[in-house]
């Protein structure tokens, strides 16, 4: 996969349009894990927009993001920084050859209210 394809792939997985970002910083203003994020939530969006994914793929932030979705909730433009973080994480995991988790590993009773994305990302993170 070329870098360009990878960028497109991350954009596709995240399902978010990074161009909608108006760079207000509300996501980073709310992020509860801000100090542990070496790359801040708003940067994820802008850097993906600029195609600077190499730094993102190496960042610690993807493992420190709590996937609490506060950034998604707060964004006034309908951009989802957490989804970008998740897409990067997903890409890293795949590049390492661990293609996702197994269905049977998911606990049988899962609260319906937990966003599925949160569940999956948490699972990956602690499985690292």
């Amino acid at each position, binding site marked *: 996969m070329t870098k360009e394809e990878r960028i497109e792939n991350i954009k596709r997985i995240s399902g978010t349009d990074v161009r*909608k970002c*108006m*760079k*207000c*910083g*509300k*996501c*980073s*203003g*709310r*992020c509860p894990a*801000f*100090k542990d994020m070496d790359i*801040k939530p*708003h*940067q994820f969006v802008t850097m993906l927009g600029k195609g600077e994914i190499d730094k993102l793929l190496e960042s610690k932030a993807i493992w420190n993001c709590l996937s609490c979705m*506060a950034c998604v909730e*707060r*964004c*006034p*433009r*309908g951009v989802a920084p957490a989804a970008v973080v998740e897409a990067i994480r997903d890409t890293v995991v795949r590049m390492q050859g661990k293609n996702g988790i197994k269905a049977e590993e998911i606990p049988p009773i899962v609260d319906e209210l937990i966003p599925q994305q949160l569940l999956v990302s948490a699972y990956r993170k602690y499985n690292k």
Partner: protein
Amino acid sequence: MQRIGVFICWCGSNIAATVDVKKVAETIKSEPGVVYSENYQYMCSENGQQLIKQAIKEHNLTGIVVGSCSPRMHEATFRKTAEAAGLNPYMVEIANIREHCSWIHKDMDEATEKAIVLVRTAIAKVKLNAPLQAGESPVVKRALVIGGGIAGIQAALDIADAGFEVDIVEKNATIGGRMAQLDKTFPTLDCSACILTPKMVDCAQHEKIDILSYSEVEEVKGFVGNFNVKIRRKARYVDETKCTGCKICMEKCPSKKGLNTFNMGLNNRPAIHIPFAQAIPNVAVIDPEQCIKLKTGKCGICQKFCGAGAIDYEQKDTFVEREYGAIVVATGFKPIALDNFNEYGYAENKDVITSLELERLMNAAGPTDGVLLRPSDGKHPKVITFIQCVGSRDTSGCGKPYCSKICCMYTAKHAMLIREKYPDTEVHVFYIDVRTPGKNYDEFYRRAVEQYGVDYIKGMVGKVYNENGKLMVQGSNLIDNEQITIESDLVVLATAIEPEPSIRKVATLLTASIDTNNFLTESHAKLRPVESPTAGVYLAGVCQGPKDIPETVSQASACAAKVIGLLAKDKLKTNPCVAVPDEMMCNGCSQCANVCAYGAITYVDKEFRLGGGKTEIRRVASVNPAVCQGCGACTVTCPSGTMDLKGFSSKQIMSEVEAICKK
């Protein structure tokens, strides 16, 4: 039998180089109905027009076709030519053999053949043209202004100064609107009341202006030049003609726990009250929800104390009906509700306030007499944090997608005023962008930073929470790429503004269109920005889009100029190419009215003879030619073909189709 004359223009070589104009003129001679056909170098020239005029007279022409450039270019010219020769100007059709033929084709034979078809098509149409007369309708020399804020006041004054009668209908007990609530105004920092109240007084004293306060528009009939408006005068339980504004009633009223809406609910007021000191009219009003007498029948204290005998508990809503030539809509705005923005803690914390509330807190006539004290404990706030774009530029569905336009400037104003009055106060402003286009605007904002040391932080607030009585404002500082938390005493939200909700009803009554954000739509964004698509209706102030005071006043004056221009005419000439119903066939189904963007169609009950001495009453459509703009939407909606469009009748268009298809 029609006698058609055809005039083929060479347009120098523009047409003649690719179209064999002589052949066209010659071929057309044998068309049925054509009695004269000629070609000439420049038909639009003096000599060309002379040729047309002469032919009309000599050959007794009943209609002419000019094969020339686009009708958008010279249709008006040739209509005047025809009129000068005594032919009805609507008996002229243009065959566009330049833009649509000679200029796009290279092959002479091909272009000539096409030109012949285009001329034939125009002949087919003109044969079915009917002489049309532009209609006339009288103009009532009186204007209605809906809304008594600065927009309405300015428009009314300008119109009245030009000598026309104006009525201002204001739904509140006083005129003045939002501007009356403001403390100082940017970018000059003059006191709002000082510049507004003289204008309010001017209105009250102007012999041409009639203020109908505490009133609402109920019904609008008619059309440009001839609106008939029914206005509800709500019962204020105080006789406006008797009340002297002495305020004894306010002192004596035992029910004093009403929220003072003028002060944004920051303090209380009695059930009977005058909204504020400089109210116009300076007349009390009773809040029936709060008044003990009106609710229980017991009390009546105000009546007892009123020396003027102005109190009337029996008052009912009354209606007045008036005629107007033009209507200005100036219904204004309100800040949005903050229910969707829990993150700022507005509902939980008294010290999180909106900018408009801050205006009242800083106003000398406000609840704190102009001393900046925070609502929770009446103490001076030492750290004040402003948050911009609360609900503006929000496409997530929680707020409004547009920029509210005024917030950047008033926040700079607030910050500056606070720092000036209370230099020991720390002021922070979280912003996304600072938008200050306008004369002296950016200078104003920079003064706040450079002269007054206001701390502008590029970033947005994610959360406001209360910790040990302090308001913790957590947000990002994008320049430093940091997340910061500011311990504040007062948080001010630059809340987005939206059109006053009553605008929906007004728009429906006026058949004025409204956009997805409830702003009224202007006729053309650039070229007709103060006119509504509904003729005779004009838009001033925020009802059309967010704007500040200077812009609002300019727009109001622009409206006034338009209204004066309209009222100065004794009669209105109407476009004769309008829809016309054939009553004999109309079902009265109302589908046409449903698609009319101008409200030009109404229905009347008419009696028709059925034969055999019987009659029948039927509901039939009636088009007001003064309002109809001639788009033709109704003609297609009408299944029975009752509606036709003059100048573009179904038969005319069909004959054009036939002429084109005839190979």
